[in-house]
């Protein structure tokens, strides 16, 4: 067993061969970074969005095996997936919650880039493609929740169709192209958009949008996956009611990323203005932001007007999103009365949010600059990172493995007992535990690579080096190495570079370095 970890077996050689073959592919043009310690996920929210996109691709492809894009079977086939097919419940819930997570992650990603001014320094193309990607992501999510063809989907499709129709000149033709001639076409066309046309457009734009430097943080990716599963376990997505044209639909609101739009529609103004022009102006503003932002600095503190515009947009998104969800609970009123939002009230609140947000931004910048100045005056606080000793790394690791075994059994029994959401929840926990485990593993490796100054460990290392050298059959150098070990020890202590040892030892330097790099 020990030998197998060091020797090159044929499987390892195969992987190495494949890896070296990648040299000729586009992947080598990307610079992948696997963080060796915890770094804030704010910097790689885009990568996390992409990972969620991949999760959606995998679960979506599997759901395609059972989903039937046929008018009177769409809802029933989803019900079949949800209730009868093994793990159909799991995959459907992951797919649904991952779609929400992707929209949310894309929005967070955009605002982080916005406030940190990353769209400057010739990143304008990344920004513009990113905005288009965001719009397509929402369209992708929208087509997805429509093809179940429940009551809510029917409401959403009817609104979308009338909005498209309201566009001057090209509107009616667009409506014919996207929605077809009836319910049957809605389902089939939205399915084609959802599973092929929009994803292809997304992938194409992503190849432009990807920067050359990418961060892939395994613990964070697994934590996000786990969070999606846990959400699915705690809030399983409902089936809704199958659309029946003979039954008046109840009040339903769209998904949270469209309730803002819904609030405007409910203000009873012209459809084109509220449903197409307002969001169009919002998207257009975002598109041109890098070209109107003339500040020379990056930080949000040094770009007050741009930051204020950003805060205003967040405030208005939050208010309208919440407003779109709100429906007067008084059932004695008529449906129309409960649904309609007073436009004067809505628009005056929207306007009032502008000076409030500017004032808030001004306040925040003042506070942040004050805090900065204070931090400079005060002595630097020393960080006290949590460090686990090597012994405790093993203890914690083994405890986590034991916990994993327990969770595996628990997840399986939950499924046997028919508690699908519990099983999904527990598998989500397994993902989180893996994230923690990987973090500890990473920490352990860092310790192993940069051992704390302790002479006992260094002499160990040299002993093991001698051993390795001997195992390579380089016997004649052995005494030389041993005699120079004192010398080498001092060198290691002075600069901590193991390669120096090999310089002292002379021969076979390259092969040794290769061996160490493998580790």
């Amino acid at each position, binding site marked *: 067993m020990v030998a197998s970890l060091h020797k090159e077996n044929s499987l390892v050689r195969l992987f190495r061969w494949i890896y070296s073959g990648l040299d000729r592919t586009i992947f080598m043009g990307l610079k992948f970074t696997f963080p060796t310690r915890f770094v804030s996920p704010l910097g790689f929210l885009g990568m996390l969005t992409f990972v969620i996109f991949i999760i959606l691709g995998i679960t979506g492809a*599997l759901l395609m095996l059972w989903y039937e894009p046929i008018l009177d079977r769409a809802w029933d086939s989803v019900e079949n997936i949800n209730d009868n097919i093994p*793990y159909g419940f799991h995959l459907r819930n992951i797919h649904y919650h991952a779609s929400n997570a992707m929209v949310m992650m894309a929005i967070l990603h955009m605002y982080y880039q916005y406030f940190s001014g990353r769209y400057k320094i010739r990143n304008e193309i990344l920004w513009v493609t990113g905005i288009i990607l965001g719009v397509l992501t929402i369209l992708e999510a929208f087509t997805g929740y429509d093809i179940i063809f429940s009551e809510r989907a029917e409401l959403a499709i009817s609104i979308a169709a009338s909005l498209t129709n309201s566009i001057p000149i090209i509107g009616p033709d667009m409506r014919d192209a996207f929605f077809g001639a009836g319910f049957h076409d809605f389902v089939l066309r939205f399915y084609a958009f959802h599973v092929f046309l929009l994803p292809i457009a997304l992938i194409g734009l992503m190849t432009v949008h990807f920067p050359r430097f990418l961060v892939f943080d395994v613990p964070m990716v697994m934590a996000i996956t786990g969070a999606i599963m846990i959400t699915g376990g705690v809030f399983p997505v409902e089936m809704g009611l199958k659309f029946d044209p003979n039954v008046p639909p109840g009040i339903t609101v769209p998904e949270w990323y469209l309730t803002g739009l819904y609030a405007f529609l409910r203000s009873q103004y012209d459809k084109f203005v509220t449903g197409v022009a307002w969001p169009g102006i919002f998207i257009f503003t975002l598109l041109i932001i890098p070209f109107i932002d003339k500040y020379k600095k990056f930080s949000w503190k040094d770009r007050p007007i741009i930051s204020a515009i950003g805060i205003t947009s967040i405030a208005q998104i939050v208010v309208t999103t919440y407003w779109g969800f709100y429906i007067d609970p008084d059932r004695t009123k008529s449906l129309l009365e409960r649904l309609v939002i007073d436009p004067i009230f809505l628009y005056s609140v929207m306007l009032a949010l502008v000076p409030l947000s500017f004032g808030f931004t001004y306040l925040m910048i003042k506070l942040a600059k004050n805090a900065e100045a204070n931090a400079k005056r005060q002595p630097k606080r020393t960080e006290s990172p949590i460090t686990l000793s090597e*012994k405790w790394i093993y203890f914690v690791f083994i405890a986590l493995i034991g916990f994993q*075994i327990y969770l595996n059994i628990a997840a*399986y029994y939950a499924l046997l007992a028919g508690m699908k959401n519990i099983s999904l929840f527990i598998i989500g926990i397994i993902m989180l*535990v893996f994230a923690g*485990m990987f973090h500890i593993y990473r920490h352990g490796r860092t310790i192993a690579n940069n051992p704390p100054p302790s002479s006992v460990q260094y002499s160990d290392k040299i002993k093991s080096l001698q051993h390795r050298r001997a195992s390579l059959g380089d016997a004649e150098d052995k005494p030389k190495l041993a005699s120079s070990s004192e010398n080498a020890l001092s060198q290691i202590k002075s600069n901590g570079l193991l390669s120096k040892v090999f310089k002292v030892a002379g021969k076979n330097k390259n092969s040794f370095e290769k061996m160490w790099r493998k*580790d």
Partner: protein
Amino acid sequence: MSTPPAPRGEDKISRRDFLKLLAAAGTVLTFTPFVDWGKFLPNPSGSTTEKAKVELPDGSQANVKTFKVNHSEAIIYPRSEDPTLNEEAFRTWQFIRLPQELGGEKNDASAFRAYSMVCLHLWCLWKYWPQDGRKRGECPCHGTLYDPLTGAAFAGPAALQSPPSNVLPRLDLEVDKDGYLWILPPNWNVNGNGIVGFGRFIA
């Protein structure tokens, strides 16, 4: 449980490798639950534990007292709620009462046969011809001939296929005390009732 001792001899495992092994164990355990998710993929032919009526095209249940000797009808099994699915070729079966010389006059299940109508050669739908001199299943596409007694192809391209692809899948039948015919729960296996479109081993 204590940490491995500091000296690392030839047969001792190094700390770094121990850490690697732990990480490998953790990774395996993390992805173990997904092995079972493979059950999402297959769509096995619906098998039930309940008996189903032999429902004739006119909607009545077949009865030994009324069903004519040397006669056949197309029946649907397993029957679905969805009329489109019921038109599927793989759900059509040829329900035959054997001719007199093959024991068709007996008033029990041995006088009846139900074979998949999907020809084992290229999946056309064959049917039973009761005329004198024929009394066999004939496929319209390439002329495979089936023996109504066993379901085995005795001439034509399907007869040249190696077992089990030369014998038609078959449903087990049962007669209740009123003479009504029932289909017993099938075992979709080449050694059981066979696999539609593929065949069955004759015991």
